[in-house]
């Protein structure tokens, strides 16, 4: 009975109620959307590298090693000598090892030297391998494979020449040994997108005529001669290591951290990513806070509408009272109306979220490499929705209590 009344009353004021419901729906959609982006960003971040058991580099901090080896942010404190690399590769626990060598750049992008094994060993987003979108993995010494962002920003196609610059912000170019783009990788949403990948030997090759960081004037070794040279690197920047059994990871980590010949550091990428997220993650709390405030604003807006509707409905309330409705019934009616508005708003908000996700998912994935999973509402989302409905009820109590006190007297004394 009272439910039918509440529904009828809401329908009678369809426009104002509709606006209130819309405000709640939008705020709920925003809040849930922010939650989705937040968890999506967090898991995308954690999925930047997977399948690698250990990252080995010069001894520094775990976050720093992760930053330069995976995110290409900052620089290594030291290199790892080739001898140490060979030693680690020879450890019985090691299943595979992929060296990486950083330090040169192309325009604003970092150049990374590695072995072809990188393409099969580097995994992201739970075991997804890198894919070559066009062209092929480098076959020649002077071939390069570029990430999707590099190709898109600089407009490169397969077959284009590339000149690698010495260092990171330097005007000296390795222009005597230009590279050729042999392949372009599909977008991954990882730092690989912003990387120019060349072979380990190529890094050595472009530095053949260089000594102590400067080019020796007037000396150019012909490319053919370089091809004949022994291009085994002297040092690498870091290495990705896969271990045969998870049970051996910690033993190998300890062996590398205790390696007496050279100060090395081995980190578990997952643990370091987590440490890094604790630094970055402050922003996520702020984001959640802001979107929660939007929901609160929408609910306060609802309270305001109920307050103003009380004025219009003074006579209605008085008639209810005259017909025998108790003050409690009036209170119940108003709260029920508010709960209905909040619930409908929350449900519409949820629908909006899924419609929005369906539209935005491929776009966001392509543009930012951020994967927003569309799955059934989680328990947490359910609690959020329930929270909104309860908050709606509590907020409506303020005008409802006013109506409770005034309904009879107020309505009967209308003079206008």
């Amino acid at each position, binding site marked *: 009975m009272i439910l039918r009344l509440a529904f009828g009353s809401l329908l009678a004021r369809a426009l104002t109620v509709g606006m209130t419901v819309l405000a709640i729906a939008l705020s709920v959609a925003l809040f849930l959307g922010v939650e989705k982006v937040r968890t999506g960003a967090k898991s995308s971040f*954690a999925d930047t590298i*997977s399948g690698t*058991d250990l990252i080995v580099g010069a001894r520094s901090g775990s976050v720093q090693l992760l930053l330069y080896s995976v995110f290409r942010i900052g620089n290594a404190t030291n290199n790892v000598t080739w001898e140490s690399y060979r030693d680690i590769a020879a450890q019985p626990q090691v299943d595979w090892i992929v060296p990486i060598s950083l330090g040169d750049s192309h325009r604003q992008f970092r150049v990374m030297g590695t072995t072809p094994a990188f393409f099969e060993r580097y995994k992201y987003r739970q075991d997804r391998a890198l894919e070559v979108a066009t062209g092929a993995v480098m076959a020649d010494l002077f071939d390069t494979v570029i990430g999707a962002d590099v190709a898109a920003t600089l407009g490169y196609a397969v077959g284009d020449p590339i000149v690698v610059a010495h260092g990171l912000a330097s005007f000296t170019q390795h222009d005597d040994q230009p590279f050729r783009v042999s392949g372009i990788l599909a977008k991954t949403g990882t730092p690989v997108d912003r990387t120019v990948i060349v072979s380990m030997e190529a890094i050595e090759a472009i530095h053949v005529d260089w000594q102590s960081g400067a080019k020796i004037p007037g000396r150019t070794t012909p490319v053919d001669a370089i091809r004949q040279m022994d291009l085994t690197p002297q040092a690498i920047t870091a290495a990705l290591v896969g271990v045969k*059994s*998870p*049970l051996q*990871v*910690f*033993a190998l*980590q*300890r062996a590398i951290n205790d390696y*007496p*010949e050279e*100060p090395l550091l081995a980190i*578990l*990428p*997952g*643990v370091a990513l*987590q*440490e890094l997220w604790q630094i970055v993650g402050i922003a996520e709390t702020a984001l959640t806070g802001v979107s929660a405030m939007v929901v609160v604003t929408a609910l306060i807006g609802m309270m305001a509408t109920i307050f103003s509707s009380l004025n219009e409905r003074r006579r209605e309330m008085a008639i209810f009272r005259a017909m025998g409705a108790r003050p409690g019934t009036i209170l119940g009616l108003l709260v029920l109306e508010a709960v209905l508005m909040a619930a409908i708003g929350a449900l519409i908000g949820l629908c909006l979220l899924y419609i929005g996700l369906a539209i935005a998912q491929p776009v966001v994935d392509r543009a930012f490499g951020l994967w927003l999973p569309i799955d059934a509402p989680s328990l947490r989302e359910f609690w959020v929705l329930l929270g909104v409905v309860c908050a709606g009820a509590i907020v409506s109590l303020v005008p409802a209590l006013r109506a409770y006190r005034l309904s009879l007297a107020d309505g009967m004394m209308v003079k206008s």
Partner: protein
Amino acid sequence: MKQILPLILITCAAPAIAQETRQMHAHEHGVGELNIAFDGPQIAIELHAPGADIVGFEYAAETADDRAAIDAAVATLARPLDLFVLPAAAECAVTQASAGLESEAHDDHDEAGHDDHDDHEHDAEHADEHAEEHHEDEAGHTEFHAEYLLTCANPGAITGIEFAYFDTFQNARELEVQMLTPAGAKGFEVERDAPTLDLRGMF
């Protein structure tokens, strides 16, 4: 020939000189390291804890009491399931367990440089010993190391770990946990105030 002999001796000695490396591990009283790796039914656990956490002292055992304390600690450490309690439903059994006391001074390295230890609260106590070029065991910090291999009939039932470790060893304040599960690597800090680890959703 006589002139060559010193040359040979120098050449032989050279590698020994070149190999002199100095390094010390970080050592923080109250904080131990725990590594846990899951692989199907097997769980490998490694514990490294400062001697101060386990027996309350880090000098070489001098009295019979000291030795008894160390022996008791090693015996306790050899029973991992009493320290790191797994749900009974997982039906875990210890396949291998080894525990021991290791002193930093036992390392082969030259220990003259103790620089990276300045942050240590107990340094003042040891200052006189540090002055010696080659100090004996009693100057170095000691660490208890333990390695375990568990086999669980029902690893899916591992929903968490209770750290009775903190009840057993009153001086331990914190364990830095690195965990390797099929879902990836995770890091945790388990503290005395909240001695549990929730592992739901990790498998």
